[in-house]
């Protein structure tokens, strides 16, 4: 586990807002010298505090008017290979996220589509034909906000 002080937390908060900020700009914001900021960023990256960079895109402007979350239960547990299902579902380009979960469903998918009829096509041709797929529950995303979390 990585130990963070208040300055590290402030740096992570700033990068979670905008990861394109220069080391100099971040340092000025937090009252740190550029080398000190650079050393801290290097440690945070090396120790894995930052998983990746996410692009925040206006999906409707790019032609993706619909985002749907699917809860999928596998039909015959024990007889389907989880690895086969995971490989097949991950290969679908419209599927943005696949999470293995425990509870009412086995997998949770985030799917983008141009519109509802495009979503129906993805659902029928790509999702319902996956190996081992059982019950599918769909919820259309209306709004989404990400919060800074306990930093």
């Amino acid at each position, binding site marked *: *586990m*990585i130990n*963070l002080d208040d300055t590290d937390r402030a740096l*992570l908060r700033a*990068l*979670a*807002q*905008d*990861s394109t900020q220069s080391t100099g700009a971040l340092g000025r914001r937090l009252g740190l010298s550029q080398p000190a900021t650079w050393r801290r960023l290097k440690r945070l990256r090396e*120790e*894995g*505090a*930052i*998983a*990746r*960079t*996410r*692009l*925040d*895109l*206006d*999906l409707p*402007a*790019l*032609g*993706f008017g619909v985002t749907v*979350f699917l*809860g999928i239960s596998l039909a015959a547990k024990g007889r389907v290979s989880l690895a086969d299902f995971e490989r097949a*579902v*991950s290969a679908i*380009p*419209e*599927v*943005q*996220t*696949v*999470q*293995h*979960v*425990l*509870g*009412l*469903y086995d*997998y*949770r998918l985030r799917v*983008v589509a141009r519109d509802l009829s495009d979503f129906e096509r993805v659902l029928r041709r790509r999702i319902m034909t996956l190996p081992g797929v059982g019950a599918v*529950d*769909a*919820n*259309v*995303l*209306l*709004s*989404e*906000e*990400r*919060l800074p*979390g*306990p*930093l």
Partner: protein
Amino acid sequence: MQIDDSDRRLLRQLMAAPDASTAMLADRAGLTEATCWRRLERLRSRGILRGQRAVIDWRALGWQVEVSLRITLDKTNPRAFDEFIAAARAVPEVLEIQTFLGRVDVRLNVIARDMIHYQQVYRDRILPLPHIADLEALMHLSDIKSDASLPI
């Protein structure tokens, strides 16, 4: 608002490598550095590229538990959504708030240090949130695919 094939190529390269320098992106998208920079600025000013954000690895920071809480609200109260969301925003362990059209009204992504801590967060901060009619939890086991590129 139209984007052309060069924008698409540029966005594809950016999605594949969100931390790449402008020079590297330009090279991969087959643009000059100046054109690449200008196009990125235009995508930003038109609000298509709203930001590039670091995703924090909460597990690496010692937050071992991640739970998706799917919540149905008591919709007889017209203020249910607004009041629920405002209260959920104030819970530090809530990372995401999504609203839906479907069987579920709202989903919260909640993290905790371990199961004992999760129980505390659940009892002391989640259950007291206003207007909850029904609630079910999905425990997050692993990410199989995250933030994939858009098929543009």
